[in-house]
């Protein structure tokens, strides 16, 4: 980070990472998102990532009950929620203990000293009080008795119970952080007004505490510096902060509207995909039909039925759910009906690490079905472009009449970032292959010459009554056929149909250098971390390094081999044991692929990537 001193107590920064950490009940998610929203509205680029326990209400003060929210803001382009933290707000000892290692030495930590009681220290497994034993000497610790100050600020507000009073201490912390980074309190006060419309005493209380924190920071000599982070240069337009899962849901809404179809979602709740179901369940006004089914199989089953009957049908899940959907997905492929399956990947195998991120469902998406059963596989790579790829998945499935698996992951699904809002009018056309009228001598399995897609004749259409099924079909009539040559022909056609999608997807682009010594390859949700690492490497003066990030996995972009050939070394970076690299090795036999893999349930860190790249360049 470059810092420019303007005056003694005031610094302008390019970027800052703030992490809020406390008990599950301390409101850290809300505090963090207020800080990121306010910063985005000020004009910063932002990226956020929540980190919360899988326990719904973990015991208070426990290490595993810590809930965190990290915000990265910048006057420059921000592509990740950030590795190391410039400012940690720790509401209790457990929050301090579990997050301390992320704080850059010499940087700030704000603690609520009231929470550092003997009992809480014990719960956080501290043998001595870190505020007293010198273990925090290398940090700038700002000790504030936040709980008492909050109580003091609220002593004149009537109608508040004790719980409401202590619960608003997160706003004291936010007030302090707002002062430190010269942020306006306006957005948050407006937020209180909306959220507590029916409880005016809570509007007053939260506003008072927020202001108290702000003024406290202003008058406190303990805070050595305040900072500004200037607005970032971003393309002009109307923006909003969006979470990956919301963006995914909205992409489908847009696609259904553009295609002139109703949207059907059949789904079964599973972490971290449920938020897509939650979001789409809200939008009945757009005619969205969301069915919370009895299980994963019924989720996809109902979607296949809805697709047969003419809806844009989708099902959403995570790894274990995709395994359960495998047979039905094979049916959809065999029927050659449109269907989008979203897999928000999480740590596997089995139940694995439900709240952590991973990219280990790729081979399941590619091959996890019986028989020769290819489908289109694409992956979103940022919270905001989940919108684009949900839209693209819908377009591909409707125009090519074959299921599409859209891979996202817990990291981009729960992360949020600015989204330049795209009006449906500016999205590309979607032309479903639906036929509304009988044609002469029509056959259910006749195909478009270019795409090999069949027609979509939906029940209710006069004269097009026909039967489909999971048994092999005659190449034209769709009637059951056991003819050996027909089966081989149909197998080849279904494969070629997917291959021809290459003609309808964009070419692979490289970022930074187009040729040279090292090509960094990634796919899906790791884009931000890979981009940041290559950018830093480039800024340090290294040349001949490019990044090729894949959103289209099956089929691969047409020019993939050409891109690979322009670099001396290739490294494929994945949050799994090497799944995409195995596909590349199979397709581009003879090329040498280095790999960098991490399977910790965590995103890549900047420094580990740069270290690897430097090794390969040496």
């Amino acid at each position, binding site marked *: 980070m470059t810092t420019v001193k303007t005056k003694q107590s005031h610094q302008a920064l390019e970027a800052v990472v703030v992490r809020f950490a406390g008990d599950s009940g301390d409101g850290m998610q809300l505090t963090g998102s207020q800080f990121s929203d306010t910063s985005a509205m000020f004009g910063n680029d932002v990226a956020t990532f929540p980190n919360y326990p899988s326990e719904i209400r973990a015991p208070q003060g426990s290490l595993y009950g810590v809930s965190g929210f990290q915000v990265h803001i910048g006057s420059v382009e921000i592509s990740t929620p950030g590795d190391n933290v410039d400012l940690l707000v720790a509401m209790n000892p457990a929050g301090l203990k579990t997050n301390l290692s992320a704080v850059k030495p010499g940087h700030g930590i704000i603690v609520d000293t009231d929470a550092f009681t003997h009992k809480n220290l014990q719960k956080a497994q501290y043998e001595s009080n870190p505020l007293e034993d010198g273990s925090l000497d290398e940090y700038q610790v700002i000790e504030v008795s936040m709980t008492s100050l909050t109580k003091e600020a609220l002593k004149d507000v009537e109608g508040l119970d004790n719980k409401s009073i202590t619960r608003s201490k997160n706003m004291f912390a936010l007030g302090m952080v707002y002062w430190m980074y010269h942020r306006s309190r306006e957005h948050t006060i407006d937020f209180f007004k909306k959220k507590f419309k029916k409880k005016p005493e809570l509007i007053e209380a939260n506003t008072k505490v927020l202001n108290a924190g702000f003024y406290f920071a202003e008058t406190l000599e303990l805070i050595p510096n305040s900072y500004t982070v200037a607005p970032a240069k971003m393309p002009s337009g109307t923006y909003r902060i969006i979470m990956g899962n919301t963006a995914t849901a909205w992409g489908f809404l847009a696609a259904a509207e553009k295609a002139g179809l109703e949207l*059907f979602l059949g789904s079964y709740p599973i972490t971290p995909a449920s938020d897509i179901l939650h979001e789409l369940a809200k939008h009945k006004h757009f005619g969205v039909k969301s069915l919370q089914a009895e299980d994963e199989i019924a989720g996809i089953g109902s979607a296949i039925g809805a697709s*047969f009957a003419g809806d844009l049908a989708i099902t959403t899940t995570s790894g274990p759910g995709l395994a359960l959907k495998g047979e039905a997905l094979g049916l959809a492929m065999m029927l050659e009906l449109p269907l989008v399956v979203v897999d928000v990947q999480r740590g596997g195998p089995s139940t694995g690490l439900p709240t952590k991120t991973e990219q280990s469902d790729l081979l399941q998406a590619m091959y996890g079905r019986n028989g020769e059963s290819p489908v289109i596989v694409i992956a979103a790579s940022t919270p905001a472009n989940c919108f684009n790829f949900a839209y693209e998945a819908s377009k591909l499935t409707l125009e090519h009449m074959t299921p599409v698996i859209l891979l996202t992951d817990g990291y981009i699904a729960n992360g949020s970032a600015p989204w330049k809002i795209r009006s*449906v009018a500016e999205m590309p056309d979607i032309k479903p292959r639906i036929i509304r009228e009988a044609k002469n001598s029509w056959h259910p399995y006749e195909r478009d010459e270019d795409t090999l897609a069949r027609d979509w004749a939906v029940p209710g259409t006069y004269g097009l009554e026909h*039967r489909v099924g999971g048994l092999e079909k005659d190449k034209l009539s769709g009637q059951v056929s056991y003819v050996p040559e027909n089966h081989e022909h149909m197998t080849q056609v279904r494969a070629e149909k997917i291959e021809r999608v290459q003609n309808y997807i964009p070419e692979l682009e490289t970022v930074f250098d187009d040729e040279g010594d090292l090509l960094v390859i990634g796919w899906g949700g790791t884009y931000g971390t890979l981009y940041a690492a290559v950018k830093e490497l480039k800024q340090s003066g290294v040349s001949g390094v490019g990044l090729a990030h894949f959103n289209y996995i099956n089929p691969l972009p047409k020019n993939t081999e050409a891109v690979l050939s322009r670099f001396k070394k290739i490294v494929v970076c994945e949050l799994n044991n090497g799944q995409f690299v195995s596909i590349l090795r199979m397709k581009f036999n003879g090329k040498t692929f280095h790999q960098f893999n991490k399977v910790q349930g965590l995103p890549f860190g900047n420094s580990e990537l740069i270290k690897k790249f430097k090794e390969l360049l040496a």
Partner: protein
Amino acid sequence: METAERKYTFKDFSSDQEVRWCPGCDDYVILRAMQKALPELGVKKEDVVFISGIGCSSRFPYYMDTYGMHSIHGRAPAIASGVKLANPDLSVWVITGDGDAMAIGGNHFIHLLRRNLDINIVLFNNEIYGLTKGQFSPTSTVGQKTKSSPYGNIQPPFQPGELAIGAQARFFARVGGNTPKEMTEVFIQAAKFKGTSLIEVLQNCPIFNNGAFAKYTDKAVRADKQLFVEHGKPMIFGKERDKGLVLNGLKLEVVTLGENGVSEEDLLVHDAELEDPTLHQMLVRSEYPLVTGIIRGFPDVTFEERAAHKKEQVKKDSNFTKTDDLFFSGETYEVH
């Protein structure tokens, strides 16, 4: 559902596919009964959809000249639910068997009944696995010797009606596989019923479980062993129409008219529309007589009606008509 202006006969519903069930199978009876029932419904052919799972019964859609899907094992109720929700104007039928509905697809089966979508389920119960060539099924009797139970089955069977009504089925009918006229009538009534209708057909498998229902369905004994119930009519059966059912405490009892001063007025009068399923469950479980006909037909709100009502409510309270309204709503900001 729009009414058809065209007049159909059973031939209009027969596809060009050769029917490939074993000779003597009751499936032929069911197919013809269905092809005869549909023209009576006044539904357009293009609005009819048959969804099946896997098993002998599930070949059925291929033989109907309507829209159809032969899907995967056990999942037909889930797929049919999607079809119906996508287009509530369609007449949707699930064709299934005892294994398909109550073993591999048990979960979807009970949840469809619970939700009460307006879908008709025809359950071909032959108490055996036919297509996989002769293993016991979830309705096989204890002691039944099959390929997978060479020393006799030890798994107690489901009674489909009991399971269905336990899962809140609003409509349950049972019909013998060799009584096509009654079957056609039951299909018509099931189709007219708003909500999920389940029709259990006692379907004889002449190859792997021949005669499973003979003691109830053979022409010689049928009248004496079966009570075909009709809504609003007293529960009388027997060749001589001299037997009837009364309620004795918490049990059904067979009485003979004219004996011990019993007259027709003393008999139970069938009320299919009762919300309380207690009596319906007793009728389902009765072994003598075996009760056939529409045992339960309790009118209730359907899932589609609830969904449509919710949608209207939400629409009325919403400012959003286009997705742009949503995208540009709330906390947005301008970058210049």
